[in-house]
């Protein structure tokens, strides 16, 4: 498939599915309540999906290959994770995470 066409197909398909998910219980199933098992399972979507996306990004270092002991991203991510856990602040997490990475890169 043509690359540009594939990209637009992804944009519209993912955009539509995202919008339908967002609209679901607000409008489409407004008269229905969430099935209990589905409600239970959905609680774990962010933890599972986002962790699955975080790890490969943190563990692979574009410069040093996959050397975990020489990868400052791991330590920076742990620091940022602790800050996020206690502060629940996006800005503080982003600030300390980037600062920690720059510091570790400068030291390493």
């Amino acid at each position: 498939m043509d690359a540009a066409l594939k990209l637009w197909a992804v944009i519209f398909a993912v955009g539509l599915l995202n919008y339908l998910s967002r609209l679901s219980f607000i409008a489409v199933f407004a008269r229905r309540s969430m099935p209990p098992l589905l409600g239970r399972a959905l609680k774990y979507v962010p933890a599972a999906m986002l962790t699955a996306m975080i790890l490969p990004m943190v563990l692979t270092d574009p410069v040093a290959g996959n050397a975990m002991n020489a990868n400052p991203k791991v330590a920076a991510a742990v620091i940022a994770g602790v800050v996020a856990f206690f502060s629940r602040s996006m800005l503080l997490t982003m600030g300390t995470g980037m600062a920690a990475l720059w510091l570790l890169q400068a030291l390493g």
Partner: protein
Amino acid sequence: MWHGAEVVYHGAVTIFPLTSLVWRFCPDAGSFMRRLLASSDFRAGFVEMLPACVALVPFGLVCGVGAAAAGASWLAALGMSAIIFSGAAQVLAGQMLAGGAPLAVIVLTCFVLGLRFLMYSAAMAPYLKALPARWQQALAFLLTDQAFAAAIRRFNAKDDPHGGAQHFLGCGMALYICWQVTNMIGFFAGNLIPASWSLEFAVPLCFLALVAPLLRDAPTIVAAIVAGIAVVALGGLPMKLNLIAAGVIGITAGTMADLARDRWTRR
């Protein structure tokens, strides 16, 4: 080289048809915006989101850079940020496109990632019941992780559905504007950002800011750990299939831990 003139030209070319479309279909848009800006709830929501908007700037830039690197046209890059309007889904789609995954796999993986919106939607629904359908449709479009967290806090604090809805709209519009602008700047001017800044690290940091505060009960921790192990263990799968597999395995593990905990405490 900086494409400053291009940014201004494309911005003007995009914004003009959009605004004329708005006026064509909603002739009262101007007075609506004026009333909105006069609403203290709307302004409070907009201002409340500004710190999160600042935190999202590097993420938005990375998304724009990623779209450019994937060979997207500026219109397709704008389509990703304006239509998908979910950084996680945009990054995921970009990675999978680069990994050569077929359309169905990309859409399915992004759908699993977007399932969290079902949860947000169900949690938000009781507060939006009294609102006109147009408001519900607009607010649903602006439902994101950050806007949801801020809006649900406001709905719980004050029993005022209309004020809460305006506050939500303020949050959503602040994030939406910030997202389009940062994505476009990343697309056109991303090559100005030095690689030594490691700006791409902003993406896992944003996800960490969402995930880490959730890790306060056992089933959620189980879901995260199992998904984390699975994504690394299945790293050899082609077409980035390890992402959706790890997601589904993690969700299943969390749900089973939740059910087991219930059975345990009932005894």
